[in-house]
């Protein structure tokens, strides 16, 4: 029974700080892409095909991370690729957050047939692979940034609906809701003043973590050739292109993979840190 400085008490601060730093860096990179990228990401240079990164034997500072099969500068493509991945990820996560939270809150607060319909639908949808649905729809309507946002946004709603539903039901049972009813408050007032504010922390956490999921899904679609059509610079496209050159130029795939894992990991750290920070149980222990 040795005394231990309880680690997690400060752990969440580190996670939030580290995660936020990575996320901030990625966002800045996306915004400042034209200033940061050394080359035009789409300019082909067939004489400089498949050049390795600068630290390899034949590498040169002209292309710090080397070039791809068409001689395009990888660093520039990586920097520009962040724009689409982040924009699609954030927009899709926000779209599904709005859809899912409204439906989940309604189902949880109103109950009855509305709840039955919404939640049965969510369960059925949750059982169906979301990536499969996205594949099918993109295959049918074609990949554009807007289509990707819509498809991923719509196919992610039930995650929020489930969480918000359960939470709303729990909040609904809390005595201060009954207190508000006894003061003569209307449903709209109670939802806005008493229910929604209780949901915000969890919504923030889920939304953060979903951005990471959406980025992964977008890159997965691109990887399968169902994302934005080439030559658009996206991390998923770069991975897919790199896969065919693994023997001769493994760096093409690996830099894209590293970029994805770093950003997604940063977002996950931020989300988990926020969850620990906002967890009421953890708070009581402090």
């Amino acid at each position: 029974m040795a005394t231990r400085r309880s680690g997690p008490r400060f752990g969440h601060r580190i996670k939030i700080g580290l995660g936020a730093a990575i996320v901030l860096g990625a966002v800045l990179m996306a915004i400042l892409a034209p200033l940061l990228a050394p080359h035009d990401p789409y300019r082909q240079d067939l004489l400089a095909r498949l050049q390795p990164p600068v630290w390899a034997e034949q590498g040169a500072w002209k292309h710090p991370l080397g070039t791809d099969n068409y001689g395009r500068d990888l660093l520039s493509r990586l920097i520009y690729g962040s724009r689409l991945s982040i924009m699609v990820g954030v927009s899709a996560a926000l779209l599904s957050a709005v859809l899912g939270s409204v439906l989940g809150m309604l189902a949880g607060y109103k109950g009855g047939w509305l709840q039955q319909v919404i939640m049965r639908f969510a369960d059925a949808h949750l059982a169906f692979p979301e990536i499969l649905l996205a594949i099918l729809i993109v295959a049918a309507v074609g990949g554009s940034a807007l289509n990707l946002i819509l498809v991923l946004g719509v196919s992610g709603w039930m995650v929020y609906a489930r969480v918000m539903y359960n939470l709303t039901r729990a909040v609904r049972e809390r005595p201060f809701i009954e207190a508000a009813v006894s003061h003569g408050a209307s449903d709209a007032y109670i939802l806005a003043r008493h229910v929604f504010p209780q949901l915000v922390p969890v919504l923030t956490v889920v939304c953060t973590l979903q951005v990471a999921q959406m980025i992964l899904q977008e890159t997965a679609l691109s990887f399968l050739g169902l994302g934005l059509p080439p030559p658009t610079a996206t991390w998923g496209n770069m991975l897919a292109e790199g896969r065919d050159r693994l023997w001769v130029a493994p760096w093409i795939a690996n830099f894209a993979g590293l970029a994805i894992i770093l950003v997604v990991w940063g977002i996950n750290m931020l989300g988990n840190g926020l969850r620990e920070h906002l967890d009421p149980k953890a708070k009581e222990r402090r």
Partner: protein
Amino acid sequence: MAETLVDIAGLEKHFAVAGGGWFSRRKLAVRAVDGVDLAIRRGETLGLVGESGCGKSTLGRLILRLVRPSAGAIRFGGVDIATLEGAALRAVRRRAQMIFQDPYGSLNPRMRVADLVTEPLRIAGRPPAAGYRAHAESLLQSVGLDAQHAERYAHEFSGGQRQRIGIARALALEPELVVADEPVSALDVSIRAQVINLMQDLQARHRLTYLFISHDLGVVHHIADRVAVMYLGRIVELAPKRALYATPRHPYTQSLLAAIPAATPALRGRRVALGGDPPSPLAPPPGCRFHTRCPHAIERCRREDPPLQAAGEGHSVACLRADEIGPIAIPLIQPGGRAGR
């Protein structure tokens, strides 16, 4: 006799049991309140006692119309509110307020105390003459809290202080009736007395009517003018306090009083414990609901459902054999009084 504030007749509330499923043919219902007639007089404190699951909390919520009755009438100040809906219902709710059992859960943790206690006024759209902030401070002072406390959040207070905040909030709308649902059960013994005294002071100052719901017969004895005893959705005995404690007529009331732990060691183990558990309110027994546990039950009790009948001045009891059994005095205190100085 004082004016009647609340008049309840034939009140029933049956809750359909969730999870009965689409495939079950019989629909189950908890008969939480199952035929209650009761009048609350203006200015009195009516104690409502019974064990968990007897329906006393549901009855309190029916009177505030926080739940919708399945049948029966609730006349509040002469108007039947049993079937009101929408804005009319919300207006009526403001005339009666509730003090909750759980001082932790009944205060929104994200609101400051000043906003908590004045929220009923905001909802009602009745800004106080002095402004919300000043009014919040005077409400807090009236329940014995500091005006500076208005800026804080509920979790910064102890249980007793939170219950004071809850009381201040209930009084914000100057209600005629206050339903107090186990207001001191969650509090420590030394804090309980403070809150009970406060409730009595406020009653005198604001001429409040209390429906005081509790499982604690000791607390009810101190605060109530009249006492109603509930068992499985029914009121089985109703009497002025002194009569109920000195000459209980219903065998259930007698058993309840007998089951209270001794006030002093000298009285220990003198009484017979009531056997068995209360039956499920899903399927109350036929006849008298208490017959499965009643030491005096006879064949007739299994068949006939006894009505609540007069049994003395202001005293009524629902028992077929009340006259045969007669009042039984339960020794509640040691002769010669108690300790302390």
